[in-house]
């Protein structure tokens, strides 16, 4: 078992909480884990990415080689495409469709979505919208993780447990809102896949 995952987004969008939840879930299953993240630039608004690797065998490199990632999970549509060189032939691209526009040359949305849909295995999900529908508007990143969950080699229940551990300090309600978001994302994916 192994999952090599690229997480991407814009600084401040919370890709690290996705990594944290998957990390917890991996540990619960006694898997090895390496997660290389980008730190340093405190300012918001730049492109950020993280390499997350889980495996039942010892993991060598902190970085995923090109063309080997099983999944790209992106909280922003244009950012999902920036790391395509890492995606394996049969890999999945799971991305939010809500753009974060802070540059003047942001591409046209129609063209952008068309690029995403060119990929044989893609899930494009309006995570912000779905998060609002389940009354958890601040959990769009968990919606995306839920949408990616069918492709991650970890039992779904462990991801819920991961959320419990990570958000425990913020109280029962926040935990439940995040679990609802995760579930809604997963349901979207399962429906789209069938």
């Amino acid at each position: 078992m192994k999952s090599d995952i690229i997480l991407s987004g814009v600084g401040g969008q919370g890709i690290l909480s996705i990594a944290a939840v998957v990390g917890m879930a991996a540990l619960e299953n006694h898997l090895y884990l390496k997660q290389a993240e980008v730190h340093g630039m405190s300012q918001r608004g730049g492109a950020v990415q993280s390499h997350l690797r889980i495996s039942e065998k010892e993991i060598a490199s902190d970085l995923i080689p090109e063309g080997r990632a099983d999944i790209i999970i992106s909280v922003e549509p244009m950012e999902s495409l920036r790391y395509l060189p890492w995606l394996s032939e049969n890999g999945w691209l799971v991305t939010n469709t809500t753009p974060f526009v802070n540059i003047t040359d942001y591409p046209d949305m129609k063209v952008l979505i068309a690029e995403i849909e060119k990929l044989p295995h893609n899930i494009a999900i309006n995570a912000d919208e779905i998060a609002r529908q389940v009354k958890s508007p601040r959990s769009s990143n968990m919606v995306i993780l839920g949408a990616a969950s069918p492709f991650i080699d970890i039992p779904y229940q462990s991801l819920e447990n991961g959320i419990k551990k990570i958000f425990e300090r913020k109280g029962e309600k926040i935990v439940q809102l995040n679990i609802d978001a995760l579930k809604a994302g997963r349901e979207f994916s399962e429906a789209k896949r069938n």
Partner: protein
Amino acid sequence: MEKLLLLGAEAIAQGAIDGGMSGVYAYPGTPSTEITEYVQHNKTAVERKLHSQWSANEKTAMEAGLGMSYAGKRAMVCMKHVGLNVAADAFINSAITGVNGGLIVTVADDPSMHSSQNEQDSRFFGKFAMIPIFEPASQQEAYDMAYEGFELSEKLKIPIMMRITTRLAHSRAGIETRPLKQENKLKYPEDPIQFVLLPSNARKRYKGLLGLQSLMEQEAERSSFNTYYPARNKSLGIIACGIAFNYLMENYPERKFPHPVLQLGQYPLPFSKVEKIVNECEHILILEDGYPLVEEMLKGYLDKNSKIKGRLDGTIPRDGELNPDIVAKALGLEVKIGKQVPSIVANRPPELCAGCSHRDIYNALNETMKEFGKQKVFSDIGCYTLGALPPWNSINSCVDMGASITMAKGAADAGVHPAIAVIGDSTFTHSGMTALLDAIVENTPMTVIISDNGTTGMTGGQASHATGRLEEICIGLGVKPEHVKVLTPLPKYHDEMVKVLREEMLYEGVSVVIPRRECIQTLARSKKDVRVKVEEVVK
């Protein structure tokens, strides 16, 4: 055994705490910052009251660490690679004084310059100082080296350098910890003049350091961090330093190496292991996540031994960090070519946060400079360096911490008028104060803008030594009180800021303008702790 999920930087902190450290001394700098932050929040460290407050700069940190070692206790000093340039005087001399309590100097290099001005390789400094260097390949090794490092330092009576690079510092993995050691008790050096580097004593101590070299080499020879993996195919031998070993392993899963491999994690070079692989193999490929240090040593100068492959002969790119693909190519292995990035994907460079005070300062500065002309603004390192990019294009330099003020002074001496410096509050107390003093002594006509956001913003919002004392420092150094002006950088005060800036630029002497408003990020955090903590204990 208990396992912790830690960044490489955090693993070093945990290893140092468990290894009986009494204090960490550091100035923030990516990718080293998390070491000290971890100690600041760690339960054992808090209970033991280990020192973990930030220092003014890397030199003061290095000296304080040496002082703690003088008193017999174990200390760690942490910095990013360019910080070692600042600490170099103390660092090099600490090898001559030697230590009393164990001393580890952890330096985090940043090949590929993810957030730095250069990609200098600190191993050169370690070699220059003639002290042992640890270079971990994994988070676990980082932990173990910190844990064991104090003992080696005390055994040799010499500081130890720990060198890591960005990818190890900022990557998480599970760590097995070891039993917590006691701290050392206060104990003065046996020789009361050990730390007195008067020439007569320095000569003795330097001979002592030279004499220790063979012992250091024996330690490296014996070290479990320097492992020889024999293999049959001797057409090639591979020397993999530090994290480069992981990229090698990625290409030969489960350490099934077809060629002999020497994994290097402790320097000076273990002579007989290196000799063995070089004699045994037809060619030697050297993998280093940094400058070609080992490669240069083995290649030699005159004969340019063509047997040695690496960055110098183009087998590996001369600059930038390593990764599994670069290593695969150097080994002649097949690499996958992924899909291309579609051309519609636009660049998204980092930008100043919405509402950042630096924005208002640059808006006011740009308007003021319309009257005075272009290319007269020297700046420094911090979030405000983004003022060099559009839409502001406000600044014309960023070299090293503190250089804005001194470069403005030199330019003013050359006739640039008005000469302007823009510097952050933390950078100012790091290295700007002595620079300002130079200008004051000569009453150089220049304007220094200290953009005070009450924090060390760039590195994530650490406490700033300048907070609450900037005006006093400037006046104390000798700036005339009527030329120390405090402003509130907000759009509504734009006209007033322009007016004050203009007046001070017309003044024929040193003036300091302090626009003051808290960093948006630290402000948001102090209102509500939104950071997610990942550090968690599992069985």
